C-alpha cells in the first residue's frame, strides 16, 4: 500500500502493458505529424487519417484474410488521404488549419460511411502478439515488453528510423530546412514543395498505421468513433515532445498510461466513476497546451520557424 492505494501485481502489469500498447499506437500517429511539422506543414487531419486507416486496414484485412495486407492498405490510404491536405495546404498554399480541420471532418465521415457494413464484425484476422521465446517468459518485463503486438515493435523501429533520417542524412537536413526557412532550402537547390508533400504523405501513412493498430490489434473490429479523439492527442503530443523524436516517445508513454488507466480503476480501487477517469488523457492534452504556452511565452519556440507558412518563391 502506498498513499492508501493498493497495487495488485496483475493490475500493474496489465496497466503498463496497455500503456505501452496505447503509447505505441499514439506514437505512430504523433511521429507522422512530427515529420510533417518539421517540414513546415501543420496537419490537423490526423484524426481523420487515423479513422481512414482504422477502417481501411480492417476492411482489407478481412477481405484478403491477411492483417499485414490490411496494415499496408492502412498506410497507403492514410498517405493518400493526407495528399488532400498536401494539395490544398502545400501546393495551393491554402490555410493549413482550415485544410487540416476539413480533412479531419472528411476522413471521419468517410470512414464511418465506409465502415457501415463492417460494423460489429468479429474479425478472424488480427495481429498476434510476438513471442520472443525466453525473453517473453521473464517475469514482469516479459509480459510488459516482450508480448506486444508486432505493431508496437514497428513503432520503435520507425522512431529510430525517423531520428536517423532527420538528423543524420542529407534528405533529413533538407526536410528540416524546409520547415525552418523554406526560402533557404529553396535557394540551396532543394524542392520545398517536394519535401513537404513527401513529409505530409509519410505523416499520413504513419497515422494510417496508428489507426490500423486500433482496429487490428488493440480492440479488433470497427465501430463508429473508435479513434475517439486520439488524433488530437497525437497533435498535442508533438508540442509536448518539442518536435523531438525521443521526447515525443516519452510523452506517448505518459499519454498511454493516461489512456490505459480508466479501464482499470476497479483493480486499483480508485475513487470516482471510471467515466471521469476516461477524461484524463484529454484533460492532460489541454493542460499540456496551456503549460506549453506559458513556458514558451518569453522564449523562442522550439517549433519549426516556418510551421504553417505556405511557400511561394518570391517573384517581383
Amino acid at each position, binding site marked *: 500500500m502506498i498513499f492508501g492505494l493498493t497495487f495488485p501485481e496483475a493490475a500493474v502489469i496489465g496497466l503498463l502493458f496497455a500503456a505501452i500498447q496505447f503509447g505505441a499506437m499514439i506514437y505512430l500517429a504523433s511521429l507522422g505529424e512530427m515529420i510533417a511539422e518539421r517540414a513546415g506543414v501543420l496537419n490537423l487531419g490526423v484524426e481523420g487519417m487515423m479513422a481512414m486507416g482504422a477502417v481501411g486496414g480492417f476492411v482489407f484485412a478481412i477481405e484478403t484474410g491477411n492483417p499485414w495486407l490490411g496494415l499496408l492498405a492502412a498506410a497507403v490510404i492514410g498517405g493518400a488521404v493526407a495528399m488532400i491536405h498536401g494539395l490544398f495546404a502545400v501546393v495551393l498554399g491554402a490555410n493549413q488549419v482550415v485544410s487540416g480541420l476539413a480533412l479531419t471532418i472528411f476522413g471521419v465521415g468517410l470512414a464511418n460511411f465506409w465502415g457501415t457494413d463492417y460494423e460489429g464484425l468479429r474479425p478472424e484476422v488480427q495481429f498476434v502478439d510476438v513471442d520472443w521465446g525466453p525473453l517473453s517468459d521473464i517475469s514482469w518485463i516479459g509480459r510488459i515488453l516482450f508480448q506486444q503486438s508486432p505493431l508496437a515493435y514497428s513503432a520503435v523501429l520507425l522512431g529510430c528510423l525517423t531520428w536517423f533520417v532527420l538528423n543524420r*542524412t542529407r534528405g533529413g*537536413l533538407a526536410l528540416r530546412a524546409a520547415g525552418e526557412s523554406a526560402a533557404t532550402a529553396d535557394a*540551396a*537547390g532543394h524542392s520545398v514543395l517536394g519535401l513537404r508533400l513527401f513529409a505530409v504523405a509519410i505523416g499520413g501513412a504513419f497515422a494510417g498505421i496508428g489507426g490500423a493498430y486500433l482496429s487490428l490489434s488493440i480492440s479488433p473490429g470497427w465501430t463508429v468513433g473508435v479513434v475517439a479523439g486520439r488524433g488530437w492527442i497525437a497533435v498535442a503530443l508533438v508540442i509536448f515532445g518539442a518536435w523531438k523524436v525521443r521526447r515525443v516517445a516519452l510523452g506517448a508513454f505518459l499519454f498511454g498510461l493516461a489512456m490505459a488507466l480508466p479501464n482499470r480503476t476497479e483493480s486499483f480501487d480508485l475513487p470516482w466513476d471510471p467515466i471521469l477517469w476516461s477524461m484524463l488523457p484529454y484533460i492532460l492534452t489541454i493542460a499540456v497546451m496551456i503549460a506549453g504556452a506559458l513556458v514558451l511565452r518569453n522564449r523562442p519556440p522550439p517549433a519549426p520557424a516556418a510551421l504553417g507558412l505556405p511557400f511561394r518563391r518570391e517573384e517581383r
Partner: protein
Amino acid sequence: MDAAPLAVELKGIWKRFPGVVANAGTELTVKRGSIHAVLGENGAGKSTLMNVLAGVYRPEEGEVRLFGERVVFANPADALAAGVGMVHQEFRLVPTFTVAENVVLGAADRVLNMGAVERRVAELAGQFSLDVDPQRHIWQLSMGERQRVEILKALWRDAEILILDEPTAVLTPNEADELGLVIRRMANDGRSVIFISHKLHEVKQYCDEATVLRGGKTVAASMPVADLTPQQLAELMVGEATEAALRPEPRQAGEQLLSVQNLCALNNRSLEALSNISLSVHAGEIVGIAGVAGNGQRELSDVIAGLRESTSGTVTLFGEDITTATPRQRFRAGLSYIPEDRVGVGLAPQLSVTDNAILRSYREHTRGPLIAVDRAKAFCADVVDSFKVRTGSLDQRIAGLSGGNLQRLLVGRELTAEPSVIVASQPTRGLDVQGVKAIQELLIDARNEGLGVLMISEDLDELLAISDRIIVMHEGQIAAEYEGADADRSAIGLAMAGESP
C-alpha cells in the same frame, strides 16, 4: 583563350516587370580574378541584373556567358552548379542550424557525419581566413559572422564567381575592412567577385574595376577604379554633378526640448535592449544616433514615441514627464515620429493617400462624429503639394507609391503638425540619391526653424554630414558622443564595434 579570360559576360540583358523596365540592354563583363564593383542608384537595375546572373530571374533577351561559354539558368541551383554564388542582402540561413549544417545544406553526402563535415568546413574557412566556428548556431552569430557563413556556402559549392549584394550594409566599418581582405584573398585565388554598392569610398577601397548602371543601362563599363575619383563615380551614377554634401550652418543650440534619463527597456525577446540611456535634444540641433543595426536604436525610438514601455527611467518633453503618456498625448505635446518601418508603423499600405495623411489628426477634420471628407482632402492636398508627394490621386492606395514618395508623405504628415521635436528613425534608408537629399533637406530646414531633431541612422556618412552632435550606441548603451564638427569617422567606427577609441 587569352591570359586573362573573361569570367562573366552579360550581353544586352532585358528584364521587365509590370510597369518597370529593370534592365534595358544592360552589359557587364568581369575579368577572372578581379573584384568588380557594380554601382548605381536604387532602381538602376543592379539587383535585377545580379539575380539574372544568379539564376533567380530569366532575362527576356540577351545572353549570359561564363568563361566564354553560353549558359542558360532555370533556377539558382543551376547557377550554383555552374559556379555562380550569390550572397543576398537578406541572408539565406537557417537560424536553428549550425554553421556547418548551413554550409553543406545544398551539397552534402547522403549520410552525414557531422564531425567530419565540421572539420572540412573549418578547413575551408581557414583557407580564406574566415573566422567562424562551424559548431555554433546561426542565431548566436553577429551579422558579420553570418555573412562569412554565406561566403563559406558559396566557397563550399566551389563558386568561381561570387556576387555580394550591398555586403557592407550590415557591417561595422572594421568588419567591412575584414571583408575587403577576404574578397581580395579570393580574387588572388583566381575567383571573381562582383561587389554591388552605392557607397563610393568602398568601391575605391576594395574594388579593381567598376561598372556603373543608370536606369537599367550601362553608362560606364569596366573602368579601372584607380583612375577614378569618387566625384566622377557619383556623376556617372546620378547623371549630373552632385553638390557637395549638405552641411547645415553651425549654430548655437537653444533650450532643451526632449530629455531622456537613465532609460532602460526590453526588446521583443524580453532581453535588455536599453540600459541607462541618457540624452537630450535641444532646439535647433540635429542629434544623430549612430550604431550597427540591433544595438537598441529601434527600442530607443519606440520608447520615446510611446510604442514600447520602459522598465525604468524617464522621458521628458519641455520639462514635463511623458514617460507613461500615450502616443497621441505625446504627439499633441509636440513630438512627431518617423518610424523605421515607414509602411506598417508609419503608414497603412491598404489605405488611401488621404486616409494616411489624416491618420494623426483625423479628429480635427470632422463634422460631428463623422470625418469631413472635403476638409480631409483639402488637408491632404496641402501636404501633397508642400512636400512634393507624387501621386496619381488622393484616393489612390499608397501601396502603389514609391519609397521616396511614401517617405515624403510620412514626413509631410508629421511636420505639418508643427511639432517641436521630431524623432526620425532611418528616414532615408532605401531611398535613391534624390530622395535621400530631399528628406535630409526637410530635416535640416526643420532644425533651422528651431525644431529639435533626433535622427537614427545606420549610414555614418549621412550622420556625419548633417548632425550637430553624434551619439554612438552599442549593446543598448551610449558608447561615445561627439560634436559634429570634430567627429572622427574611424573613432566612431571603433565605438560602433564596441571598442573604446
